[in-house]
């Protein structure tokens, strides 16, 4: 009783202090957006103009609706979290929370790779994309929140590109991507969201029956537990439902099953690289050896090959394998599912084979050059 009175007193005191500190014009509902606009129209004209042209502005959704008040906004650097957007868009928020997008920041934080990056520069790398967990405006960018923009493959391409997961490049070199680029017509050929967010679902994990981040072969749910064979088949069926918009069911199934086989071959080849390195490690040829290097942030002093292997502080032969599994195997199997022959073959399979040659040659050299030392 006593403590709750104290809390009430503190709330009253702090809110009256806040009112004294900032003199915003208050209406019965709160702060008048005119108060924000009188400064921000001039100070941040780009942001203001985008909002003016948005559907939000037309529907009376203004600064205060999302940012609450100047102080609250200031404290969180103007960020607005999905929970807030969900007050008006509950269906989309619910769907989003079923997707792997909604756990991407949490997953990043426990990754060895993330932990091995100097803390003060992590925000420039991983966090920029993985913040999607807490930012609807990763795709619906501020302050236009344009649907047309969010639906464009380029909106996904800002994160889904580059050496570790070139989804954008795979798509652009597939027949799907080429026809879409030429026609800009989603009825002619699919764009990213046609398959991954059909009917506007915000569960971007829809129909995906294969492993996360492309580095593991098993399929897991949001809690990282492997899914059942039945669930896997159900998801595959979901996706084939999209393909049958243009393709026969038999054809779609055949194509995806072929991609399954490509994936198996990729992982088999990867194993050969692993074996060569395990042998070298047993022979004591790794430099720095497991004892000489910093322990892996999550795996300790173990030889980590493939996920969650690091690209930092290992031996050269392990680094060759890093390229093989992280950059090239992912091209083999994911491009198989995205139907890009140049990525799955040239940039993927051929590169993996070349990596394997490099790894074997390096293993021979290590034995030849340092073999005497071990005798």
């Amino acid at each position: 009783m006593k403590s709750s009175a104290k809390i009430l007193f503190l709330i009253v005191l702090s809110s009256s202090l806040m009112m004294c500190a900032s003199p915003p014009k208050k209406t019965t509902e709160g702060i008048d957006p005119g108060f924000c606009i009188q400064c921000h129209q001039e100070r941040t004209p780009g942001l203001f103009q985008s909002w003016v042209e948005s559907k939000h502005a037309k529907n009376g959704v203004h600064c205060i609706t999302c940012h609450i008040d100047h102080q609250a906004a200031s404290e969180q650097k103007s960020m607005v979290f999905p929970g807030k957007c969900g007050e008006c868009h509950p269906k989309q928020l619910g769907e989003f929370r079923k997707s792997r997008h909604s756990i991407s920041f949490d997953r990043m934080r426990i990754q060895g790779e993330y932990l091995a990056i100097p803390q003060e520069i992590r925000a420039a790398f991983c966090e920029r994309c993985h913040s999607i967990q807490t930012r609807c405006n990763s795709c619906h960018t501020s302050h236009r929140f344009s649907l047309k923009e969010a639906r464009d493959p380029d909106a996904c391409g800002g994160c889904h590109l580059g050496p570790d997961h070139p989804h954008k490049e795979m798509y652009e070199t597939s027949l799907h991507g080429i026809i879409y680029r030429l026609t800009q017509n989603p009825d002619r050929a699919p764009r990213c969201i046609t398959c991954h967010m059909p009917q506007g679902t915000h569960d971007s994990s829809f129909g995906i029956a294969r492993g996360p981040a492309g580095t593991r072969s098993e399929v897991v749910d949001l809690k990282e537990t492997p899914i059942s064979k039945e669930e896997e088949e159900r998801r595959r069926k979901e996706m084939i439902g999209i393909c049958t918009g243009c393709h026969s069911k038999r054809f779609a199934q055949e194509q995806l099953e072929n991609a399954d086989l490509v994936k198996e071959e990729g992982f088999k080849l990867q194993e050969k690289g692993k074996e060569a390195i395990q042998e070298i490690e047993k022979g004591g040829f790794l430099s720095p050896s497991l004892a000489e290097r910093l322990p892996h942030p999550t795996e300790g002093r173990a030889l980590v090959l493939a996920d969650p292997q690091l690209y930092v502080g290992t031996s050269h032969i392990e680094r060759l394998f890093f390229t093989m599994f992280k950059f090239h195997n992912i091209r083999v199997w994911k491009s198989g599912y995205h139907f890009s022959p140049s990525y799955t073959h040239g940039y993927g399979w051929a590169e993996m084979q070349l990596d394997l040659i490099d790894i074997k040659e390096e293993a021979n050299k290590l034995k030849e050059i340092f073999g005497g030392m071990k005798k």
Partner: protein
Amino acid sequence: MFKKTLFLFLILSFLISVPVWAEEKIGDCLACHQKETRGIFQSWVNSKHAQKGVDCITCHKSHDEAKPKKSAVEPKVCGECHREKYDQFQNGRHSIAWNRMKEHPQYQALPDPLKKAFCERCHTIQDKCNSCHTSHAFNPAEAREPEACKKCHTGLAGPHDEMYASSLHGTVYLVDKNPVRAPSCVSCHMHKGTHNISFGIVYDSWGNPVDKDGKPLSKEEQEEVRKQMVKGVCFQCHIKSLTLERFELADAVKQRAKALLNEAEKVIRELEQEGILSRSAVLGRNQLYQESSRIEALYYRMDHFQNVYTWKGAYHFSADFAHWYGWAHLQMSLIEIKEEARKLREMRKMRK
């Protein structure tokens, strides 16, 4: 016959009234060039130049003068009408691009035909307004598009276009084509149409804080230059605290990348001192990508490619470039350099 007489009469009257430059008239040029170089002619017809009576003779002076120059028109000729833009251009690094290239050992080490096909194609910007305002349309709308910058600012040594295109700025601009929604290259680098492309840029291509002439900038001057960019450009859409935080983050990335380079250099210098390298190594700015030891070549990739992706990627807010093409590859190269050093040492022991 009548036409010919009239023509001669007109020429004569021109020669009398404006004897210095009016030996030739636009009609003379068009008589042939309308047919022989149709593309050029058509571009000019639709240009603002044509509408305003700026014709062949205005810029090329005369047929005899144009021919030995292969029709090139130098910036100072453009500057006769576009004085302000010309002066701004002279303050930016584009205006010394050719001179800097000529001094660079990598340029000097190339055979002549390669020089022409490689470096010179872009570095001519020092003497070519039509690098960006391409002939003969000279269309500002075209020159403002990121594509216009891309011709040179792309690829291994300076993938500015790729960094921009993979940043949120580039993503939004490429979808909307609306510079109010998100910046294009010129929004930040040619703010309000300035032709001083060094506007708001603290570092040169090597990451050194210097002015156009290579004079180091003091801490205060660096802050002043950055302030131009941050206040003039970023604040149009972003709040102060977040903007400054982003730049400081990029500064930290740049320093961390530099530290990795230093670590790699140390490994190579030690080998040098031990007499394992056959000659002293040139590392960094004046380094060549040819005829060096393999360990130096590994450093070349770090310095000229991966380091650039890391720090410039950070200032362009492309996480993918800064991290995967940059930082991750710097780390992997460092592993390779250390391994190469270890092997070189061991092989020397074996020879003894």
